[in-house]
């Protein structure tokens, strides 16, 4: 098997055994990026010199015998994480030339563990989008069909893994931004329990929902990456102080006795028949492995999209106020006075979707509307969390489709925001409840586009979810397939 298709564990073993150096491995992926990125547009920033320097550091770390398990394995970082010395754009004109003077907590953890960076991946502007089409740097193309979107907002991350331009990548998920692109690009991605991964240095979209997580070719790879990413950070007040755990510890546990909850609301109207069939086939596979199923109800899940499109824009409207042209980032070249400078800077620096959400957010927080929108949405958010709590009394993991359909064509939904928002129908509830969720490949539709299966677990049940996904991936090979024609 080539380096490009190898698992992280296999790459780590080769690195530890000096069969390959981190520099060689990094160069291998840089070559693939150089060849494929003009087509896929998964990376916004590539800097071979910096990547190779980090790889050289990793080789030194390995040579010193002090290296951690994944030292030397190169990864790609979503361009939402601030990186000292590397440009951090968040997919926006507003930050097109912004170089942060510090590393995000997640980046620091990867550096400390000796994983060199392959570059910064493309994304929807400020993570607002489900197709990667809102990026200032142009859309990412789906490696399975370059006329189609890779999903979003972590579309560059998902696409670069699918195209084997990187063995793994970081992503962030506010309403499905790891899971939906993972489904569309046929990779595995996990959004951890809210608070497990520090948000420090991750440019905020909606603070109460944002959570970083790993994206890779398999659940096993995700488990190893999660081991690197998690840990208490005193710089993030919402970071959870917990004992360190090994997320790979339960991978090999048999599934006998596993209770899989099937929310009837996730198999209702609006779900593409091919997706439904693939998910049902996956359920049958899990049953063969010893799982039982139980129907559960998430009665308020249908309200998740309206609730989300009140709360996320409300927080975003405030979080994005700092992009005002005063201290860093884009500033309009001509303006009459202070207010004109603000207005023009933000009108020119933000794209349409970001402006739409800022307007929605400012509206729902404004005097006289706050109670009707924001407070009401917070109440329903608690009801949704309560529905999950009830469901987890009778099941260990909830299973359903990640998205209602497969990758759609570029431009197909970009004129209809509501149609676009419906893509996150199944993923948003986990964000609202702060629960961990993951997506893994479970088949292909008639057009040979990947289909994603979603697992939602109880708080801190990542090891169990990864166990279920890994056992499924042991008996299936959907996750191991790769798009053709991208050599």
């Amino acid at each position, binding site marked *: 098997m080539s380096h490009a298709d190898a698992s992280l564990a296999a790459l780590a073993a080769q690195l530890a055994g000096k069969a390959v150096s981190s520099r060689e491995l990094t160069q291998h992926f840089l070559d693939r990026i150089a060849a494929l990125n003009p087509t896929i547009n998964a990376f916004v920033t590539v800097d071979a010199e910096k990547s190779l320097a980090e790889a050289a550091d990793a080789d030194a770390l390995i040579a010193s015998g002090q290296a951690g398990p994944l030292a030397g394995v190169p990864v790609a970082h979503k361009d939402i994480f601030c990186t000292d010395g590397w440009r951090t754009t*968040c997919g926006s004109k507003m930050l097109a030339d912004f170089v942060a*003077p510090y590393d995000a907590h997640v980046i620091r953890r990867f550096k400390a563990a000796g994983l060199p960076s392959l570059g910064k991946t493309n994304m929807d502007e400020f993570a607002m989008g489900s197709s990667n089409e809102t990026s200032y740097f142009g859309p990412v193309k789906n490696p399975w069909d370059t006329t189609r979107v890779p999903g979003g907002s972590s579309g560059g991350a998902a696409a670069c893994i699918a195209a084997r331009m990187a063995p793994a990548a970081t992503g962030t998920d506010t309403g499905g931004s790891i899971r939906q692109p993972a489904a569309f690009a046929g990779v595995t991605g996990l959004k951890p329990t809210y608070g497990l991964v520090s948000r*420090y240095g991750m440019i905020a979209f909606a603070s109460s929902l944002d959570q970083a997580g790993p994206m890779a070719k398999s659940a096993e790879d995700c488990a190893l990456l999660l081991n690197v990413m998690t840990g208490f950070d005193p710089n993030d007040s919402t970071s959870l102080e917990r004992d360190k755990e090994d997320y790979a510890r339960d991978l090999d546990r048999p599934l006998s006795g596993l209770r899989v909850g099937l929310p009837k609301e996730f198999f209702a109207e609006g779900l593409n028949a091919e997706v439904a069939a693939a998910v049902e086939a996956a359920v049958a596979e899990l049953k063969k492995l010893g799982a039982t199923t139980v129907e559960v109800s998430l009665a308020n899940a249908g309200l998740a999209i309206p609730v989300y499109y009140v709360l996320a824009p409300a927080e975003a409207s405030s979080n994005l106020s700092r992009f005002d042209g005063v201290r860093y980032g884009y500033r309009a070249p001509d303006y009459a006075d202070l207010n004109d400078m603000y207005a023009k800077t933000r009108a020119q620096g933000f794209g349409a979707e970001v402006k739409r959400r800022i307007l929605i957010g400012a509206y729902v927080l404004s005097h006289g509307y706050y109670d009707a929108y924001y407070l009401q949405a917070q109440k329903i958010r608690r009801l949704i969390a309560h529905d999950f709590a009830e469901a987890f009394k009778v099941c260990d993991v909830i299973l359903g489709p990640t998205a209602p359909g497969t990758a759609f064509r570029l431009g197909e939904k970009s004129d209809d925001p509501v149609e676009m928002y419906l893509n996150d129908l199944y993923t948003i509830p986990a964000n609202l409840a702060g629960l961990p969720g993951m997506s893994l490949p479970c088949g292909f539709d008639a057009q040979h586009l990947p289909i994603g299966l979603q697992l939602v677990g109880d708080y801190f049940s990542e090891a169990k979810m990864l166990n279920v996904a890994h056992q499924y991936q042991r008996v299936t090979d959907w996750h191991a397939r790769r798009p053709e024609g991208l050599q």
Partner: protein
Amino acid sequence: MKWETVIGLEVHTQLATQSKIFSGSSTAFGAAPNTQASAVDIALPGVLPVLNRGAVECAIKFGLAVGATLNRVNMFDRKNYFYPDLPKGYQISQLAKPIVEHGALKIMADGEEKTIRITRAHMEEDAGKSLHEDFHGMTGIDLNRAGTPLLEIVSEPDLRSSAEAVAYAKALHTLVTWIGICDGNMQEGSFRVDANVSVRPVGQAEFGTRREIKNLNSFRFLQQAIDYEAHWQIETLEDGGRIEQATVLFDPDTGETRMMRSKEDAHDYRYFPDPDLLPVKLDDAWIDRVRGALPELPAAMQARFVEQYGVTAYDAGILTGSRALADYFEAAAQVCGQGKLAANWVMGELSAALNKAELDIAASPVSAARLGALIGRIQDGTLSGKLAKQVFEGLWAGAGEVDAIIEARGLKQMSDSGELEKIVDDVLAANQKSVEEFRAGKDKAFNALVGQVMKASKGKANPTQVNELLKARLG
């Protein structure tokens, strides 16, 4: 028509923490622009706030000191508005659930004690500074102050005159510096006052429409601004005008208030709970620990001074005007065992000298121990009041200990009666005219003789003794 002025104050006190409320940057005043502004303070993308527990502790102290309710769970909200010196585009403050509610502070107004209710006190971060001078056609931004912790203390509209407002502001100033949560430096902006002022006909129950005077940084300006504003409002109403709700600024040069923005221009701050910060939880152990570390409060100390040292309530009020003054007085009183005398000296000779030299009590060249020793020498008869003043001058000039000064300058009161008798006899012999006048019934002549004796003794004679001796001789 008789009018009544109604005033409520909002006071921003800068909390005396070493670092900022949501970052580790220093809060020290006067550093070069933007040298105390970290990634968090300048709101770089991705940064997050972490609450400084020291600021919470200051707020707890204040709540305990004004007998308020401490909200066991209180929360931070975002107040959204754009301004160049507000880096995040929002200020982190507390709206719905402040840490302190329902307190009270007693003030003296027209010789009467009055209780002013404190509605609430909440924690928030300060903004930076916009510097409009020195940047031709541009504005400089200094973010050193951005993120400095503030406690905003809001009173009920319980004040009825500028004098009451000043008395309340001063009492609050004393309290926050007393408990050590604020350095009280008004020039540096550590204690800033907004005054909400309205007027109404005496006897009317409803309040008039208020206007808010922003950012008064001295007690004198507070008084002037309220007086002007109340006068302006009364005149406007008497001329048939109406008061519109507004925010106004006080111009110290003209002594007038002028409109800053009307109610129509008021911002919609779009407050909502800050999702980056967890609710602040106060447990009993924390509160008890803070309570245990609180010093004796001004009101309690005032009562104790009356009780323990026999000073008047009025004097005790002055002596507890600051913790440094109160501590000084008490130390001096302890040394000499003479509370009333110590109070007189502290409020008299010492205060006068400090005022003249423009020195704070903490910088007094005469220590409390030495002043106490000096008073001790008056009490034991070594010094007359007049001599004591000379010794005090020596102490002020740094001439050393009390007894050394007395010795070196020969200021000891004459205690040898033989020596005094000789002086008296000499004076009587030399002033036969006065003696005859006295005997002829002129009492004034007696005083002249006393004066001559004191003069001959170079002021060291004990006046009581002189009186007695003269009376005996002339008897």
